[in-house]
């Protein structure tokens, strides 16, 4: 069995990163010019890493599937980015940010990684301001902060409702500067199809040019994957339509272990599904839960009448409303964490009390807040969100309560990496949402942006150099080498096989099916029986897909259906791994809720004695069972506790 070496540096927690940097290997400037690095993905992690590595003097080749590096899905993040600046003088510190993040992750993240994340968080804000990112300011000209869930301090920096977009444009600017300088070569509308290994090390990638359909070969001394998360395995999610797991999945199939695949985050306040043609879900900021009260009808017959459109919620008297979060969690009420709020909504809807024409929605009601504060105050606080809701749903939330339902929006799991963000394949590094590190079993709000930029600006430029120091005499890998030949043959074979099926079912119909299986059995509530059924269902779906999918056209030129088919075939396989991981973890923690493991009050029950480890899965073949490796988690600087939201 391969031994997992997390490579956590020696020394006290607060000195580990400093010690690492002081003793790591460096590459001299003349040698950097001889080294090529491939970066896949141009979101916060990939874009910032590519720019920073190029600034150091490396040759960087960057790939993205969109038409421009500025369109990566990081752009959709709204709320903000955390940092331990303590500008408001409210008691924040690096330790406190570290502590909140580990606790928020329900004690399933590595202490040393999270501490480093908190440590460099302040550098990120400095860097972004220097780039001209227009963060919100106070009248005195200083940066403004606001609060987010899971914290007792105000440490979130924001740029109106588009923090992700502005941070990404900062990284895109830095990348553009390096492209102009000539040390970054940018390849857009390219999709990674394989990682090419030589002597066990990552030495290149095979990509498909999405415009010409041709396969292209690119060699390097190291490869960085920053290809985002895999929320789209659920079909309906808040992820962008083209977000996919394929780059990470190809790496997994080449030997990179997959960490915590079943850890996904489900956000409670999304606009509900409204029809079977629906393509994606829209998130409404969780700040709405500050003033909105969540409820469903107390009587099932009322819920049924609402579902049929025979009754309006405004006509349901106060005594017939069930404010279930306030009922179940008197101390935290409507402000319980995301995972708890999501599960409670599902429970009510499963029991038949859901509203909307599908019965899969709950109300978020601002009536009391409007009565108490006046409409103008509510408008000032949430006007833009109310307007967005109105545009999509065509209902005025000032008059009728909003309808919301949970949706998938982030994956904590990803490729397993050590402290240096290197996978189990030497030379293959993974950053941002694509790796598993930092968030444990649940991510706190405003921490995704922090992690992406921490990895890209401040961690990978150091750790990749540490690896590359002894690669300076390694010659460039010839793209005509047998390794590339073999990879291309394999990829081409797969594409030919897909195109030859010419069955009767569309790619999207399979994507919907895998999404439904995942949502029903590997979603908010999981059980042994359900997970076993999911594994079987996914196996037969895989068979069905490879016999009956229909992809029109061929492999010459642009073929959008073929692009989707490759991604969906990977989602089906990944779904199975997620189910296996969830099945093997006989406990509930963070976003992973196993129905068998809950307290009498229905709360998540961790099993620290048996499950305080990182699950890292090794691929053994498409029809073989993957092998589970365990990396023990040691908490030396934090006292491990059970979360409680019923009493303060």
């Amino acid at each position: 069995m391969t031994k997992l070496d997390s490579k956590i540096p020696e020394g006290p927690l607060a000195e580990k990163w400093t010690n690492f940097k002081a003793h790591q290997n460096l590459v001299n400037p003349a040698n950097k010019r001889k080294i090529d690095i491939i970066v896949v993905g141009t979101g916060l992690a990939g874009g910032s890493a590519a720019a920073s590595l190029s600034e150091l003097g490396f040759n960087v080749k960057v790939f993205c599937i969109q038409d421009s590096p500025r369109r990566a899905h990081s752009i959709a993040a709204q709320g903000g980015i955390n940092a331990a600046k303590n500008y408001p003088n409210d008691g924040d510190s690096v330790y406190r940010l570290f502590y909140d993040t580990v606790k928020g992750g329900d004690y399933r993240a590595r202490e040393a990684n999270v501490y480093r994340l908190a440590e460099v968080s302040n550098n990120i804000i400095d860097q972004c301001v220097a780039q001209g990112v227009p963060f919100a300011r106070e009248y005195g000209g200083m940066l403004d902060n606001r609060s987010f869930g899971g914290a007792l301090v105000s440490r979130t920096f924001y740029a109106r409702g588009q923090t992700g977009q502005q941070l990404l444009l900062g990284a895109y600017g830095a990348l553009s500067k390096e492209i102009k300088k000539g040390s970054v070569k940018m390849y857009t509308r390219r999709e990674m199809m394989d990682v090419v290994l030589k002597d066990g090390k990552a030495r290149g990638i095979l990509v498909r040019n999405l415009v010409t359909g041709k396969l292209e070969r690119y060699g390097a001394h190291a490869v960085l994957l920053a290809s985002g998360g895999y929320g789209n395995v659920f079909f309906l999610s808040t992820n962008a339509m083209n977000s996919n797991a394929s780059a990470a999945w190809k790496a997994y199939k080449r030997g990179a272990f997959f960490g915590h695949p079943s850890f996904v985050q489900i956000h409670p306040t999304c606009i509900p599904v409204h029809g079977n043609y629906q393509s994606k879900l829209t998130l409404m900021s969780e700040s709405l839960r500050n003033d909105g009260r969540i409820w469903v009808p107390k009587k099932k017959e009322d819920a049924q009448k609402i579902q049929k459109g025979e009754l309006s919620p405004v006509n349901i008297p106060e005594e017939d409303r069930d404010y279930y979060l306030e009922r179940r969690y008197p101390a935290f009420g409507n402000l319980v964490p995301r995972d708890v709020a999501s599960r409670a909504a599902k429970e009510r809807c499963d029991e038949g009390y859901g509203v909307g024409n599908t019965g899969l929605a709950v109300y978020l009601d601002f009536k009391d807040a409007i009565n108490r504060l006046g409409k103008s105050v509510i408008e000032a606080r949430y006007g833009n969100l109310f307007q967005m809701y109105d545009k999509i749903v065509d209902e005025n939330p000032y008059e009728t309560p909003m309808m919301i339902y949970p949706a998938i929006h982030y994956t904590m799991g990803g490729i397993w990496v050590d402290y240096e963000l290197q996978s189990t394949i030497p030379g293959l590094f993974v950053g941002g949402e694509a790796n598993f590190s930092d968030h444990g079993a649940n991510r706190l709000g405003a921490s995704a942006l922090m992690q992406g930029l921490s990895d890209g600006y401040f961690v990978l430029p150091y750790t990749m150099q540490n690896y590359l120091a002894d690669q300076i005499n390694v010659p460039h890998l010839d793209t005509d080498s047998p390794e590339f030949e073999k990879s291309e043959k394999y990829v081409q074979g797969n594409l030919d096989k897909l195109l030859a099926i010419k069955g009767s079912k569309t790619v999207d119909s399979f994507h919907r099916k895998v999404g439904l299986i995942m949502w029903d059995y590997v979603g908010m509530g999981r059980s042994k029986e359900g997970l076993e059924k999911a594994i079987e269902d996914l196996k037969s779906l895989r068979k069905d897909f490879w016999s009956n999918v229909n992809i029109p056209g061929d492999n010459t030129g642009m073929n959008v259906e073929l692009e989707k088919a490759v991604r969906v075939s990977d989602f089906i396989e990944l779904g199975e791994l997620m189910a296996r991981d969830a099945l093997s973890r006989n406990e509930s923690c963070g976003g992973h809720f196993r129905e068998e493991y809950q307290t009498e009050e229905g709360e998540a029950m961790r099993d620290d004695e048996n499950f305080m480890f990182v699950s890292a899965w090794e691929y053994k073949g498409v029809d073989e069972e993957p092998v589970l490796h365990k990396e023990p988690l040691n908490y030396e600087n934090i006292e491990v506790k059970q979360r409680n939201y019923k009493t303060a």
Partner: protein
Amino acid sequence: MDLKLKIWRQADANAEGKFVTYPVHNISQDASFLEMLDVLNEELVTNGKEPVAFDHDCREGICGMCSLFINGRPHGPDDSVTTCQLHMRKFKDGETVVIEPWRAKPFPVIKDLKVDRSPFDEIIRSGGYVSVNTGGVPDANTIPINKENADLAMDAAACIGCGACVAACKNASAMLFVSAKVSQLALLPQGKVEAKRRVESMVAKMDDLGFGNCTNTYACEAECPKDISVANIARMNREFLCAKVT
């Protein structure tokens, strides 16, 4: 609702394109415009035909990827939204809807409704950033910025680079796009250091790439899904003039 769609089909950049008419049936008023196209494509694929290629990604109105010219307007008949946030309730049952790609020389068609907007990236590369490397920067609060300018910079920075301004302009001018970036950085102290170099270089690049001149029709502002103001164009002209006389 039932609709008749007249869609521009073009196999690739070099092929000749033409309008093809497709009927669609039973479309929900609550569907988004792109979901309506998904329904059409699903039907085309089921019948073994090639689906209509169009760019899209976040479907939340922020990535700037979607780019359809609908009934003569970039992003269609609703105001201040991208195509992905346009809903079918803005159309009438039985209506004929004409769907074209962005029509502008610097944005050649790649396939059907997809165009190549990489000239926007080239303009940004010519100077649309602050030339600062990672690390070694001062603490964020050592640069106080008055709130009014910070807010104006944010207004300009809200541009999503979709290209609707170019598509709306009879001259295919990129002035609104370029001025949004020039303005954002001109309004902030961080951007002042290279302001002269930036505006000269970006304007020259814009001209090189074949974007047309601005004749102040304000069509760009009217069609911008993010309500970027033409005041940015005035600010850029001032910056440009200052750069040329100093």
